[in-house]
């Protein structure tokens, strides 16, 4: 991966086109800058080969320079109940009893999914606080973050986390700093079983489907499937789930995530209705004055007559 993979595709709270981004119309009429789509990056998480070693958790905290802190014991092997502002990568441990009465121990690496249609970016009012690169990485720029936490409202995966001391929101960057320098994300580098893989979206999808076919043919995971949710136009972190019928049982992975309907209405129709409504209102009262004049006091009209 070269630096060109970090061309900006979309910017939060930004009016107009995106400088250097894919939304500028090219002279030939296309709206993408050609090569950028070839470099869609993707993380593949195969839940069927994850052993819950948490090497990825350690690698994430180390690379991003955060201190280790106290874990929360809730009688599972899970480090804490959910990701936090300085802990972006969490293995979720789930004990499930299946239909046949067998106990399954499911592990899933929870982190930002890097949605193709990111609810956080759509919600964010601060110019440049959230950017989506053409390679699919959705990244937060804390220097522009204003702490409004609209991204929490927009995210279908409960990922952005607020730090009340800095009044800013943090989440997984998909190691955009490493990817921009041609390296794989830290979690990928640390994984000992190969259940984490990194590459182009096309390649990862191919590998994921190949693995699903293998699971169906040779294991008892006959309901295996790939998790690449359509509702957010696909994600740049995809899962191979042993049982794709019910993603919820993998630590609350939403079955059909979308940007919430009221966030869409709020950042879509309401924004335009509000903007044009205010302009129409101001013009309306102006032309009311021009048409009907001021309100006169009793007797004024008579006095004006000669």
């Amino acid at each position, binding site marked *: 991966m070269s630096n060109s993979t970090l061309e900006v595709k979309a910017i939060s*709270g*930004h*009016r107009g086109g995106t400088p250097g981004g894919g939304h500028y119309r090219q002279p030939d009429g296309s709206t993408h800058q050609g090569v950028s789509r070839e470099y869609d990056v993707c993380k593949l998480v195969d839940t069927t080969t994850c052993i819950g070693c948490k090497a990825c958790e350690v690698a994430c905290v180390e690379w991003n320079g955060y201190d280790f802190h106290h874990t929360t014991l809730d009688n599972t092997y899970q480090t804490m109940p*959910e990701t936090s502002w300085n802990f972006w990568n969490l293995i979720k441990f789930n004990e499930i009893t299946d239909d046949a009465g067998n106990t399954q121990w499911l592990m899933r690496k929870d982190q930002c999914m890097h949605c193709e249609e990111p609810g956080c970016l759509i919600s964010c*009012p*601060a*110019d440049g606080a959230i950017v989506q690169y053409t390679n699919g990485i959705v990244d937060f720029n804390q220097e*522009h*973050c*204003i*702490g*409004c*936490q*609209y991204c*929490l*409202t*927009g995210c279908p995966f*409960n990922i952005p*986390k*607020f730090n*009340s001391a800095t*009044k800013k929101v943090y989440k997984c960057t998909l190691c955009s700093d490493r990817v921009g320098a041609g390296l794989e994300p830290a979690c990928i580098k640390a994984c000992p079983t190969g259940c984490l893989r990194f590459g182009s979206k096309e390649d990862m999808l191919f590998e994921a489907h190949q693995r699903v076919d293998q699971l169906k043919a040779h294991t008892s995971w006959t309901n295996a499937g790939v998790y690449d949710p359509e509702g957010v136009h696909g994600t740049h972190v995809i899962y191979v789930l042993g049982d794709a019928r019910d993603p919820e049982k993998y630590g*609350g992975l939403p079955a059909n995530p979308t940007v*919430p*309907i*009221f*966030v869409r*209405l*709020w950042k879509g129709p*309401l*924004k335009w*209705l*509000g*903007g044009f*409504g*205010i302009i129409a*209102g*101001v013009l*309306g*009262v102006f032309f*009311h*004055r021009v048409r*009907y*004049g*001021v*309100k*006169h*006091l*009793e*007797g004024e009209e008579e006095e004006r007559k000669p």
Partner: protein
Amino acid sequence: MSSGTITRAGTAPLNEVARYSFAERAVHWIAAIAYVYCMVTGLALFTPFMYWMAAVLGGGGTDRFWHPWVGLVYLVTILWMQAKWRWDMAPIPEDKKWDRNLKYYVKNQDDKMPPQGRFNAGQKLFWKGMFWCALILLITGVVMWFPELMPRDAHFALTLFTFIHSATALVTIALIIIHVYMSVWLEPGSLKSMIDGGVSPRWARTHHRLWYEKMTGRKS
């Protein structure tokens, strides 16, 4: 000196009818400043086309910090005005005819309007509207103030409240546009009454006949 005329220390009595006390004017302008601050900072957070207003007022983070606090100040002034004017804002039989004849009021054919008390039926509507909107803004606003405390199971409510907060704020902006236009431009004497406290007897008789009669004791 007849009741209803105001005097100022050391000056001759002005031939004016006292309309707003100092407390009423002060609270009104605190409300106005608080509302405008919340409106401008709110619009900055609402649409990228207004985000530059955030920079003017000290940056987005400053906006986000002060907007809820100033909103609480605004709420207090709204509650004060609700209590203070509750009798003057009570409906009277003439209000029905006023509502029916609204189209003449809009066309400035004020001779077709029924006599009104201290506040006309339109002002009563504005007073009620701003109160209910303020309550909705408070409830939804408190949730948006601390979204990190919202349980994830109630995430749908967070998205709904955020939408309602913005939609309600837009309703208040519509009301405010009419309110400011009428008092500053359409009705000479209104703005002055909220600054100096008094209106001319003629103004009082034209716009608030029943109140004029009560204040001056004169039948017209």
